[in-house]
């Protein structure tokens, strides 16, 4: 009788242990996911291969930008988030190609592809070590996913185990919220120029 009880207890323990191991096994996507490097807005955030700083963040309902065959106005059902940033490579020349916005609900929004020909957009130029370059990031977001968001920047969205900057963003100042923003071709240093209405 005591032998049977012992067997039953051992069986239950084994099942519990197996279930615990099953629950705690990380997903393959988690094992090869990028290595998070935390950062905050207002300070330069640094990974082993590049440094990035957020300069200014704007919000608009409408965006006008140079497109194929003339200037186009881009409407959205949410809001346009325009981020002016600067980045610099550390040791060798690299290209930053992946930018995502993680909303407070954990939903990931890719950088918009609607403004493909705007000068200075992330991914349009390579970064050289020691030469800071201005970078423009544009996201199309629903209103409730803007405050409390995190900016995720990486060299590539597909490279596993590479570093990804995760910059915690502060709420946008009221002075930087506009009905409409016009992006124009800029000068020698800053490749774009923003005009507000």
């Amino acid at each position, binding site marked *: 009788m005591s032998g049977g009880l012992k067997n039953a207890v051992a069986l239950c323990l084994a099942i519990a242990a197996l279930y615990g191991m099953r629950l705690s096994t990380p*997903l*393959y996507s988690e094992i090869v996911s990028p290595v998070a490097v935390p950062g905050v807005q207002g300070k330069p955030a640094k990974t082993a291969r590049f440094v990035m700083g957020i300069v200014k963040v704007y919000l608009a309902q409408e965006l006008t930008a140079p497109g*194929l065959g003339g200037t186009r106005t881009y409407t959205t*059902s*949410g809001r346009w988030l325009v981020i002016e940033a600067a980045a610099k490579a550390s040791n060798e020349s690299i290209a930053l190609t992946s930018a995502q916005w993680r909303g407070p609900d954990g*939903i*990931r*929004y890719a950088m918009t592809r*609607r403004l493909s020909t705007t000068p200075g957009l992330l991914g349009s130029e390579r970064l050289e070590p020691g030469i800071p370059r201005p970078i423009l990031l544009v996201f199309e977001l*629903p209103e409730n996913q803007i405050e409390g968001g995190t900016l995720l920047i990486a060299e590539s969205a597909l490279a596993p185990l590479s570093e990804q900057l995760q910059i915690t963003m502060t709420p946008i100042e009221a002075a930087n919220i506009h009905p409409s923003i016009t992006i124009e071709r800029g000068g020698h240093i800053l490749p774009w120029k923003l005009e507000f209405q």
Partner: protein
Amino acid sequence: MANEQRRSLRQRLFAILIAGIGSAAASVISYAAAIYHAANPAPLRTAATGEMIDTGQWHITIAGARISNKPPTGIKPTEPQTFLLVDFEADNRSAASTFIPSALFSFDPTIPELPEPTIYLVRDRWIAGPVNPRMPEKLTAAWQLPQDYAPPPELRLLVGSQIYKERDNLYGASNWFDREPVAAVELDLPDAGAEARR
């Protein structure tokens, strides 16, 4: 001693027999069920235009179809071409911006030599990028019809489905996968033929 040994052997044989019968019955039932379901597929739901279809990853609402000699950009191609345009609204229900899957739409019966559709964003009248979650967008799927194909006045559009696998069968990675159609939509092409070759 010998008697006891024989009894324990008999017990073990009995246990093996029970386990064998059980597992054989389980596999027979599972195969039979699979064969039965393959032989008697559930009838495909027919959705009307304007009715929301839940495909798993997307909520799709088909608005209608038309035949045109221009793609949704409005720029007429230099060589005369015929386009089959299906207007729809898509709401991304997943947790990340995603392109409309190319296997989302198919036709029954299939149109021979039909290329993959190009998805256009109605807002921009330009090729659509990934659709953001919680931001439903109006889109147009455009198929360039083969030159010698005369579109019929009615078409049956099948809307595919997707399932989410937390661990896929190959790598154990999380991803969305295309599955068989969940709904059919009967589309009228009022201007088939007439406007097409204008």
